[in-house]
């Protein structure tokens, strides 16, 4: 495995952690009802989606780097 694939793997795990963080924010929102927690959850899901998009973009752009 070269750095290109290791980077893609790291970004994939980062996207997964962003989802976990979003779920944690949602659980906080259910407990305290603070709007900040809801915004945090939405931001986390957006970041997760962005990371997945970046991951596929990165793999396409670096296809020649092996």
């Amino acid at each position, binding site marked *: 495995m*070269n*750095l*290109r694939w*290791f980077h893609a793997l790291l970004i994939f*795990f*980062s996207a997964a*952690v962003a989802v976990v*963080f979003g779920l*944690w924010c949602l659980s906080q929102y259910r407990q305290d009802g603070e709007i900040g927690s809801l915004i945090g959850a939405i931001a986390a899901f957006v970041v997760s989606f962005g990371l997945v998009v970046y991951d596929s973009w990165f793999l396409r752009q670096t296809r020649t*780097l092996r």
Partner: protein
Amino acid sequence: MEIPYTVEARRDTGLNNGKIGIWLFLASEVMLFGALFASYILIRTGSSSWPRGDTILSVPLATFNTLVLISSSVTMVMAWASLMRRKLGTFRMYIGGTVLLGLVFLIVKYFEYSDKFHHGHFPSTDNFYAIYFTLTGLHMLHVAGGMAVNAYFWGPGAKQYYTNPEWFTNRVENSGLFWHFVDLVWIFLFPTLYLL
């Protein structure tokens, strides 16, 4: 006498010397952090009460640091890609950014640790803080080590680019693999210690 397989791959393994070396090293690192994670799980499941990380640790600071490390992995891979395209100036910019982001991570951890010490929380306080300081402290040492190597490649180590650019590119890739491993450890540490 010239050292063989610094650039070209060995026919039997398909890897050059540096790549084999870094993967063996990373395998030993997996065992080190794996043992610590296993200890954490055993201590936590065996404990009658265990504090939730989000009640005593700063989740916003840790979230910020997670974003910093993910960004640093992007700059690291861009540094390597720049060398692959033979652009030393761009490489220097990205590797410098990686070092700076590592520094930001350590500064944030300094404030986090200072706050804990200020409130009288030390590794000897309880099992939670013992495992928290051990895991995050060891991780910080790895970040500092990666920064030192990357700073060397940014500075004096870059001289090798003029004499053997392929070998230099391989060395930067190996440094990048280590840096990504350190980032990956944090990606597991963050939810384990701070959110659960």
